[in-house]
């Protein structure tokens, strides 16, 4: 028996390590979150290497894009793209306000208490990608160059003017890992903007998204805009998630099979905004100021609600 163990000790060690790995898989909360000292150390050790290779790649790409490939057109294109992003965001905000106002009118409610969300954000640059294309593993994440020292924490929303990108799942002192909305572990509460039908968007590892829990009787059509519902406490309400690309009947004839294309082209982004705090301010601030003047006090800013855990 001892000779057998000695002869195949490599095999036994392999089996033992496989079992430890399985234990780690089942205790890692679907791989998102949790304190991992070893992981933090590995990321800290590899950070300088990544920084060097990232800046080398950026330098090469910069020379190519800025000097060799269409000099001048790049800046103009970037300016126009920014303008389109701004107008898209503004248009979406206006649509949302219009729908809110219409509904309030129909219900006969005088919409004094309509709330507007204001946010504080941190701009971060992407330093490393994984799983965006061939050979990067199955997970869809990226690393950004902002961490705890910049006020970043887990479960903070990551966005661009085009739409939602994902959420922070791991933070070290100077970097954060962002779980993309296309990762199979991601799920976001959403609303179809036109019909106000609610559902949950999940990543499916192909680059597209699945919109689940929309009943067969609910109205959803191609090109409908999908926005965040703001229910889970991570994403503010009204951010664009994507557009419906395909609506099919499911086999169970109860829910629809809906494919959504993400609004933001994740393969082309270089910087993102991380929403570090959210607060609700009532629109009728004039009335508040009047009241405060009458009392001889300055109006207090609205309290900052903590970001809730994702459901």
């Amino acid at each position: 028996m001892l000779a057998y163990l000695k002869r195949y000790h490599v095999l036994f060690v392999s089996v033992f390590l496989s079992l430890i790995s399985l234990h780690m898989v089942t205790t890692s909360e679907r791989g998102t979150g949790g304190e991992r000292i070893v992981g933090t150390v590995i990321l800290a050790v590899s950070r300088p290497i990544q920084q060097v290779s990232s800046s080398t790649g950026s330098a090469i790409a910069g020379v190519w894009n800025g000097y060799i490939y269409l000099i001048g057109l790049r800046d103009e294109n970037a300016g126009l793209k920014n303008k389109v992003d701004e107008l898209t965001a503004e248009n979406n905000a206006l649509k949302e306000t219009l729908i809110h106002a219409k509904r309030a009118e129909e219900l006969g409610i005088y919409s004094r208490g309509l709330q507007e969300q204001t946010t504080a954000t941190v701009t971060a640059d992407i330093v490393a990608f994984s799983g965006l294309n061939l050979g990067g593993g199955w997970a869809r994440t990226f690393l950004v160059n902002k961490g705890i020292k910049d006020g970043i924490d887990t479960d903070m929303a990551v966005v661009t003017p085009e739409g939602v990108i994902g959420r922070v799942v791991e933070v070290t002192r100077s970097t954060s890992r962002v779980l993309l909305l296309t990762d199979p572990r991601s799920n976001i509460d959403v609303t179809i903007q036109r019909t106000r039908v609610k559902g949950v968007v999940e990543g499916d590892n192909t680059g597209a998204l699945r919109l689940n829990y929309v009943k067969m009787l609910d109205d959803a059509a191609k090109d409908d805009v999908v926005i965040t519902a703001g229910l889970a406490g991570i994403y503010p309400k009204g951010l664009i998630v994507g557009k419906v690309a395909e609506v099919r009947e499911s086999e169970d004839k109860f829910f629809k099979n809906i494919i959504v294309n993400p609004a933001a082209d994740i393969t082309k982004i270089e910087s993102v905004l991380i929403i570090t705090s959210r607060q609700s301010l009532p629109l009728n601030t004039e009335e508040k100021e009047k009241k405060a003047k009458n009392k001889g006090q300055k109006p207090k800013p609205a309290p900052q609600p903590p970001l809730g855990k994702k459901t």
Partner: protein
Amino acid sequence: MKDYITYIPVALVFLSIKTTIAPSIPLPDVVLLSVFYTAYNRPSASGAFLAFCLGYIEDTFYGNVIGSTSFAFAVLYGVTYLIRLKLRFESTPVKAAASAVAALSKGICTLLVLNSIGIQATSFLLHTVPVAAFTGILAPFIFNLFDRLPAPKLYGHTNKDSI
């Protein structure tokens, strides 16, 4: 363990390049090849532990579920160890085919683990197939480079015998 320590910086540099400069370029799975190479040429308990560590590092880099790649590498190490007792990979096409099969096995192992915890990543295999092919094609060349790394002569193998 010190005989295998060289593979850790190799993996760190490869993963850094893969996640920064070349996230969308299909590169051969160098980390997998180093596990396969050590399991075939220098099998030992330390080597199995190295495979586990390399899996952990890859999971950390890619943001995978921690343990999924470690599991695949540990299984691959054990299976390669058993196979080497029966088979010899002599010619270049056989080395390439064996490496491609190892890359596919890694994908299947990872997928099984993910499915067991409710993560549907079925399309992942579609990405695995071209990477496996690419890994297989370039494997003989990469094994040649590994031959130049400092190696102990275990089980009577020399660098000339290695895959």
